[in-house]
């Protein structure tokens, strides 16, 4: 059978698949070029080569993905898989050995003399690349909902685990050989692992409704262990400095995280001898792959951020990178699990849905022109937030000409001009996106959590708690939010986290009201009554029936809250109440205002941050409004 015949059997016709393949390849190529370029805007030869390398890997991944869809012919697939695997392996080694820029990164010794460490580096790189390919392919399959034979899945699982273990061993060896903060890396990785492992454990335990007490007990034990390790680990740790070690340390951490996320839930289940309703192996495997992808993305973010220009920003940058990682792993997994719970194929328990399936939501969403516009804008801003510091040509805080008191208008050197002391506005703009976005999202989430808790408690338990909590909510609705934020910050003090905390604390009341109303109407439904009659406990009803049903409402409300939180953050920074060491759009405006940029017509200084804030707020409003229309058509607000 030749290839075209084989392709003919796929569900996806090769012609149809081609555009996806090309787009995917291009995207990866661009990202790879950016990685290699490290932000410089002139692209030399070697970066293009690196880009092509990245694209090749991506293309291979896609081909494997397509092959996986082939029917029944397991042997052939195995052959293909191994061929692809080997080809990748050799490409990686070949390319890594050839491109000077990669040598800078991946080799520990002079490029000319091939030593043990160099080989280890290549092997490690190859293993990592291979692992990425297979996991990416699998995750894509899973996301697209493609079906493969179980055998193939098992096979790939074996290969992936093999690759992971290989990479792990290599990295550990490397760490030992080079003595680059070996202990620290291991400790830090372990810390990550244990902290992160808590998520799947909690989820897996949450999903076993027969024994919630025991689940809680185990969760507590695990978190205690993680805390202890964190304390001891960080106590004896020094910061790892050079880029190379950071990459390896990041990779090691990522891989260990992935492995642990796969195995710890299994151990937890085995230890606590809970009989899970779902196959824990499947579940943990899925979560492991998500974690791996998330952790690898995190690794790259880490690598980039640590290469940031000035010391202040390096410190800050790694914090925000941690937040991004934290957000991704902690939110992605529960979110996906929840989504699966709501929309997935699980036959064990069908939850009555107030809305259609996720596909239907998207189907409606994409017809909303405003919504799509908002989404595109948001994606662009997220791109800036993640890659901005890499793309920034200058250090945003470093004065180019400390004596100068006159800002320069835009020129070919400074795209958006400079502010006083000739700091680059374009770089500040790129850095600022991250803070505005992170603060907005975190504060929005915080207020969503508070609002949901209050709303569900008030709505479900009713009576006294309802009355008390609703008076409390009314009280927070009445208090003018801006003065309250000002007062709170004046009392607590100014820092990044205080801003998030204060915004979250001030803005939860509307969510609580909306959620309560929704809970009240769901409580009337018959299946809740039946569930009570069957002997379900309160926690079961709340987590399995009430929460999933109000979830869509919470999502829409939260996105609107994020818009308001971004606004609040900009305002607080502008008011001079934000963290003074953090570059954000509000901070830029504050400085502009301080130096009377409006009066002096320094439009290039004011326009970028203003436009950034406006566009970001608008994006969230539009997305939130559209989702609101789709998810809860009856509850019209505003």
């Amino acid at each position, binding site marked *: 059978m030749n290839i075209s015949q084989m392709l003919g059997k796929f569900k996806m016709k090769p012609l149809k698949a081609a555009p996806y393949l090309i787009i995917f390849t291009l995207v990866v190529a661009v990202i790879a070029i950016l990685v290699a370029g490290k932000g410089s805007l002139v692209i030399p030869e070697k970066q293009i080569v690196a880009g092509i390398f990245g694209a090749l890997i991506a293309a291979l991944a896609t081909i494997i993905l397509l092959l996986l869809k082939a029917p029944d012919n397991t042997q052939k697939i195995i052959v293909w898989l191994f061929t692809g695997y080997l080809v990748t392996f050799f490409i990686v080694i070949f390319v890594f050995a050839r491109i000077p820029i990669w040598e800078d990164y991946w080799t520990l010794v002079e490029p000319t003399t091939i030593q043990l460490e160099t080989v280890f580096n290549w092997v490690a790189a190859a293993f990592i690349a291979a692992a990425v390919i297979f996991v990416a392919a699998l995750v894509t399959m899973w996301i697209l909902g493609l079906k493969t034979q179980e055998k193939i899945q098992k096979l790939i699982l074996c290969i992936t685990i093999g690759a992971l273990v290989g990479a792990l061993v290599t990295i550990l060896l490397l760490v030992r050989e080079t003595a680059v903060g070996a202990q620290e890396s291991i400790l830090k990785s372990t810390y990550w692992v244990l902290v992160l492992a808590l998520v799947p454990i909690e989820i897996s335990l949450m999903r076993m409704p027969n024994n919630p007490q025991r689940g809680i007990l185990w969760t507590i034990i695990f978190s205690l262990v993680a805390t202890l390790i964190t304390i001891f680990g960080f106590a004896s740790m020094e910061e790892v400095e050079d880029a190379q070690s950071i990459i390896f340390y990041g990779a090691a951490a990522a891989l260990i995280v992935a492995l642990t996320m796969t195995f710890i839930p299994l151990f937890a289940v085995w230890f606590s001898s809970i009989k899970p309703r779902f196959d824990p192996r499947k579940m943990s495997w899925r979560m492991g792959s998500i974690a791996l992808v998330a952790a690898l993305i995190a690794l790259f973010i880490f690598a980039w951020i640590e290469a940031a220009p000035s010391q202040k920003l390096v410190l800050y940058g790694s914090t925000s990178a941690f937040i991004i990682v934290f957000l991704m792993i902690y939110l992605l997994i529960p979110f996906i699990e929840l989504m699966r719970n709501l929309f997935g194929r699980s036959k064990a328990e069908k939850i009555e849905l107030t809305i259609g399936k996720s596909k239907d939501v998207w189907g409606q969403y994409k017809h909303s022109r405003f919504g799509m516009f908002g989404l595109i804008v948001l994606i662009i801003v997220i791109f800036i937030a993640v890659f901005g510091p890499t793309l920034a040509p200058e250090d945003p805080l470093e004065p180019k000409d400390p004596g100068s008191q006159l800002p320069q208008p835009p020129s070919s050197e400074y795209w958006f001009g400079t502010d006083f002391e000739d700091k680059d506005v374009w770089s500040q703009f790129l850095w600022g996106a991250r803070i505005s976005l992170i603060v907005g999202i975190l504060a929005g989430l915080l207020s969503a959590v508070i609002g949901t808790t209050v709303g569900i408690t008030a709505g479900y338990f009713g009576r006294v708690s309802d009355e008390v909590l609703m008076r409390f909510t009314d*009280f927070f609705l*009445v208090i003018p939010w801006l003065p309250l934020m*000002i007062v709170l910050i004046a009392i607590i003090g100014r820092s990044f986290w205080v801003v998030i905390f204060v915004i979250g604390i001030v803005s939860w009341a509307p969510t609580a009201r909306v959620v309560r109303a929704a809970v009240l109407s769901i409580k009337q439904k018959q299946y809740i009554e039946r569930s009570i009659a069957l002997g379900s406990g309160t926690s079961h009803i709340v987590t399995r029936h009430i929460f999933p049903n109000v979830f869509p409402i919470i999502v829409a409300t939260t996105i609107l809250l994020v818009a308001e939180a971004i606004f609040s953050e900009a305002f607080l920074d502008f008011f001079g109440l934000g963290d003074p060491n953090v570059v954000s759009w509000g901070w830029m405006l504050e400085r502009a205002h301080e130096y009377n940029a409006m009066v002096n017509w320094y439009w290039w200084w004011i326009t970028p941050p203003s436009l950034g804030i406006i566009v970001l707020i608008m994006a969230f409003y539009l997305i939130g409004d559209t989702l609101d229309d789709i998810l809860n058509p009856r509850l*019209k607000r*505003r």
Partner: protein
Amino acid sequence: MAEKKLGMRDFLLRKLIYLFITLFLIITFNFFLFRVMPGDPIYLLFPKGATPEVIAEWKHLLGWDQPLFTQYFVYVKDTFTGDLGISFKYLPRTPISDILPPYITKTLFLSGVGVVLSIFLGVIVGREVAWRKGKMFDKVVTTTAIIMYSIPAFLYALFFIMIFVKFIPGWPFWGAVSDNFGDMNIFEKIFDISQHAFLPVISVAIESLAGFALIVRSSLIDVMTEDYILTAEAKGLPDRDILKKHAMPNAFLPVVAVIAFNVGWILGGTVMIEYIFTYKGLGYLTWEAVLGYDYPLLQACFLLETITVLVANFIADILNFYLDPRVEI
């Protein structure tokens, strides 16, 4: 709860009780908010190196040498009798209730004019847009309104200052009146006040104006699909009459509720507008108090701002009840 329609008197009584409870909560909150700081708050007020005698004197002056609960009861009593304590830094040893009146007037003026303007224009714009639903005018104005709604008020203020400085030199945008205000005659005074208030009021009004216009539009569009509108059309009434006499009164109901909810937002907005334009109202005073760590003053400002919103909400509730016979509780 029995589904029986409450009379105006019962409604008022009930709302008043809630108002009172919330007021009490706010005062309590306001008291403890400034007492939960770790350590003795008095030391936050002083630069290091203040003599114990000075500290003791101030403690006594502020009443902070009493036990916490005594302080609390004294605070509640004082607040209800209009004694807001004494300023610490801003105008040392002056009773706050003597400082506040001019500031309150300015804030009420600013937000009052802003609210009225934004409601008035918002309703007109929303109505005209809803009337031309689906036409080019509607699309353009609605998109503009969404964009305008996304722009924070302080950005408007910055933008206006930029434009005015560039193109209308000599336009005042600092303070509420000119320096030589005392020498003017009555017309010049009115002109001076309006000239100074123009930009702040526009900045306060414009964001909520867009929001109100969008609400009025969607509410009107909902109403226009009702059967009685069709009936009115069938009777051959002029289009404008249908809009004004049949559609508007009903479309107005949800708008009132939303406007009530937004009063707090607008008042919050004046804080930043006052800060940017150095318009000496409550918001500006809040800012001064934060800068000077003048906690008694900050406390008083915050209390007044909260009460303003509370009262505005109360009025809106009553108005809503009056307009909408379906409202319960």
